[in-house]
């Protein structure tokens, strides 16, 4: 019954999205727009109802998973009655169909939220926006109902389910995918705003101010989702790495890069009425990257190791949707964007110019990541098989990212429209001195680290100083939230950069085959391998190593890495043991036993690695403050822009 109710809600939501599209189009028809109010009054509740129905459908799926209703094919294929309830719950989206339902739900809920809360956008633009959102939703409802129905029943009902991929059986699964999707799919709102504004020729500062909070909200979730995903992969995969440049990661990074550029260009549009066409382009690109990412991941076209993993029907379906939506939006862009008025001009040394450089560099990184991710496909079309790995990405994206961070330090110190470069030099003197000092210290005390980490560690402290500079001589209690937000987000970038550079410059690794009783060393730690014990969990058994660790003469503490074997499906995983101290993390994983009864132990000492994710959290928190600041200011009806 629940499955049928969920499926019914999904069909109804699809029908409402069609209605929303038709009503919206009718309202925008030439002549029909004379009095859009009756239609507008209809479009808004329809959008809200569509969001509610999609959410109900998703809740039905969660319920089925919580009850382990094995008569539903998806539950039987991906769940198991012996699983802890948290993974039953999160298992609802730990598979293709469930994650696509979550995807569509976020799309519908985001559209509903726009219908409920957006009050500043011109009415006809709002209708066009909601119609565009409905058009996107309609295609993905069709995809779910035709090619990925999550509610299909199974007959006969199996006695037990197949279980969830053990790598996913982690609390991270309950947090990371929904957060990421809220950002990933939430950015669809920016796409729809752009399409709406192109249709009604309403690209201007007021439009930008209305769009900005939605971009910010999606960007916050995206930032959090990527940060959480990075940490999850770091401790769950047991390789000690925090970013792997694999296609799935790139699929989430590319929308983030585009959204970050958009966040900055929309500010130029809102404040100085500049970068109009560019902002529209970025809004289209950001969500296009989300859809392309979904396609790359869901069609299996890039990650396939075996042909059977590729599902051409699903891939082709999403590809058609891509062609319709992205192709449609870009066609509209080509037809309409020249009617958009040119914005006001600015000098080479100005806040606008710094933001333009920011946008260019972000776009270049985006392009390089995009090319690197797709390059295997291109060469494959030419009959050659290659894979593109971290060395490419680090080498090409690393230096540009560093340049970007350096510009980021300068941007907030510049005035809008025009500034004096001598003033800039004066304001930038302190950060440059800090950089020089950091470089000197590094060369003296840590010789022989790679060029990129060295540059990273050199500029990170300077950028941190430059980031807080906008607060200089301000009355801190009267400083608006969005200035605080910018400061904290930029500081977060510096913190994260310091973590990345430190991790790659100073990590110490020890890989040994050890017998119980043996002592080894990694970085400042001495590690005694006490014993190996078998232990059992709810749906797994494991070999657990007991280690006693001591830092110098400090107090001893215990670490217990495990090599787990999950029972359903039978899969080995490595559960690393991690000890976080104030200046880094000790990361220990246990491998296999060799013939002499020795165990592989991998130990890493990663100084300041935690800063990577602390920085990520700060960036997201800065975004949140900025969002609160913008919304508060809009509520009070204060003028939006103070040229800070």
């Amino acid at each position, binding site marked *: 019954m629940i499955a049928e109710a969920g499926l019914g809600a999904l069909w109804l939501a699809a029908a409402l999205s069609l209605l929303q599209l038709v009503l919206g189009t009718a309202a925008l028809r030439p002549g029909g727009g004379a009095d859009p109010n009756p239609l507008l009054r209809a479009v808004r509740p329809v959008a809200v109802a569509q969001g509610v129905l999609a959410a109900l459908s998703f809740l039905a799926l969660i319920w089925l998973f919580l009850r382990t209703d094995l008569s539903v094919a998806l539950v039987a294929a991906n769940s198991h009655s012996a699983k802890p309830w948290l993974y039953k719950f999160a298992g609802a989206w730990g598979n293709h169909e469930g994650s696509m339902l979550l995807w569509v739900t976020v799309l519908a809920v985001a559209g509903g939220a726009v219908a409920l809360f957006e009050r500043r956008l011109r009415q006809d633009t709002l209708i066009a926006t909601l119609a565009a959102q409905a058009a996107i939703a309609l295609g993905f409802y069709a995809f779910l109902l035709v090619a990925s129905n999550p509610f299909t029943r199974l007959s006969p009902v199996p006695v037990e389910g197949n279980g969830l991929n053990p790598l996913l059986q982690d609390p991270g699964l309950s947090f990371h995918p929904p957060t990421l999707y809220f950002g990933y799919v939430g950015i669809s709102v920016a796409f729809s705003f752009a399409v709406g504004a192109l249709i009604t020729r309403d690209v201007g500062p007021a439009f930008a101010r209305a769009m900005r909070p939605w971009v910010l909200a999606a960007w916050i979730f995206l930032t959090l989702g990527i940060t959480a995903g990075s940490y999850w992969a770091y401790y769950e995969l047991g390789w000690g790495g925090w970013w792997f440049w694999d296609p799935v990661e790139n699929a989430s990074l590319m929308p983030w890069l585009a959204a970050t550029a958009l966040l900055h260009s929309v500010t130029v549009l809102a404040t100085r009425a500049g970068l109009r*066409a560019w902002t529209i*382009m970025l809004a*289209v*690109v950001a969500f*296009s990257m989300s859809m*392309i990412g979904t*396609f790359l991941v869901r*069609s299996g*076209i890039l990650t*396939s*190791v*075996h*042909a059977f993993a*590729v599902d*051409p029907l699903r*891939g*082709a379906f999403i*590809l058609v949707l*891509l*062609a319709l939506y*992205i*192709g449609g939006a*870009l*066609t509209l*862009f*080509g037809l309409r*964007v*020249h009617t958009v008025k040119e914005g006001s001009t600015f000098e080479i040394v100005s806040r606008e110019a710094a933001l333009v450089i920011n946008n260019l560099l972000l776009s270049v990184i985006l392009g390089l990541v995009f090319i690197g991710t*797709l390059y*295997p*496909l*291109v060469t*494959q*079309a030419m009959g050659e*098989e290659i894979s593109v790995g971290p060395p490419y990405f680090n080498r090409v994206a690393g230096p540009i990212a560093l340049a970007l961070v350096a510009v980021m330090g300068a941007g907030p110190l510049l005035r809008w429209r025009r500034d004096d470069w001598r003033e800039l030099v004066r304001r930038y003197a302190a950060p440059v001195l800090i950089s020089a000092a950091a470089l000197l210290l590094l060369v003296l005390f840590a010789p022989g680290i790679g060029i990129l980490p060295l540059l990273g560690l050199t500029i990170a402290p300077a950028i941190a100083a430059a980031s807080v500079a906008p607060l200089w001589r301000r009355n801190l209690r009267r400083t608006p939230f969005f200035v605080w937000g910018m400061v904290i987000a930029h500081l977060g970038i510096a913190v994260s950069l310091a973590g990345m550079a430190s991790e790659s410059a100073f990590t110490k690794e020890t890989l040994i085959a050890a017998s119980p009783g043996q002592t080894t060393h990694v970085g400042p730690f001495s590690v005694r391998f006490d014993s190996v014990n078998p232990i059992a969990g709810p749906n797994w058994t494991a070999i657990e190593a007991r280690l006693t660790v001591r830092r110098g003469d400090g107090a001893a503490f215990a670490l217990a890495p495990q090599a787990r074997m999950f029972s359903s499906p039978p899969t080995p995983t490595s559960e690393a043991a991690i000890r976080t101290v104030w200046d880094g993390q000790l990361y220990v994983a246990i491998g296999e036993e060799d013939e002499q009864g020795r165990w592989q132990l991998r130990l890493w000492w990663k100084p300041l690695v935690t800063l990577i994710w602390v920085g990520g959290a700060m960036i997201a928190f800065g975004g949140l403050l900025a969002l609160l600041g913008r919304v508060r200011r809009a509520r009070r009806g204060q003028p939006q822009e103070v040229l800070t």
Partner: protein
Amino acid sequence: MKRIVLWVPLFAFAVFLAVVASGLYAPADRNIESQLIGQPVPEFDLPPALTGRPGLSSAALRGGDPHLINIFASWCLPCRVEAPQLAELSRRGIPVDGIAVRDRAEDLSGFLASYGDPFRSIGADNDRRVQLTLGSAGVPETFVVDGRGVIRHQHIGAITPQDMVAIIAAYEAAR
């Protein structure tokens, strides 16, 4: 001029679509053939996987007659699918030697009892070392080795009834 620039994104996207669409229908996975085809079988000597039946060594393959080497395992589902075809090959007088990968004697005898037993000898390859030396990446795989111990043909995956002609032809060619 400026009008043209505005269409560049659409054009770039069209190129992307074309590349991806071609990729979608030409999956990247091709079978990776062993580099040893046309080469002598590398030296190995596997202990018997079952008591009462000989193991398999490279020396035994140089006995003057061609053989099939079937790499299989009791835990491997496609191996059950190909079992009738192997039985048929054996019935036609083609000698089939087995290499059991990461297997246990009791599972193995159960497997042979259920799905038929075409094997003259079965070597136990418990750490997959011999399988990898032969250039085989998975189970099941079947090699045709001629009388001088040279690998003549490799079949990757389960032998289906449609594959029989090719296998028998390769065997005949190796005589």
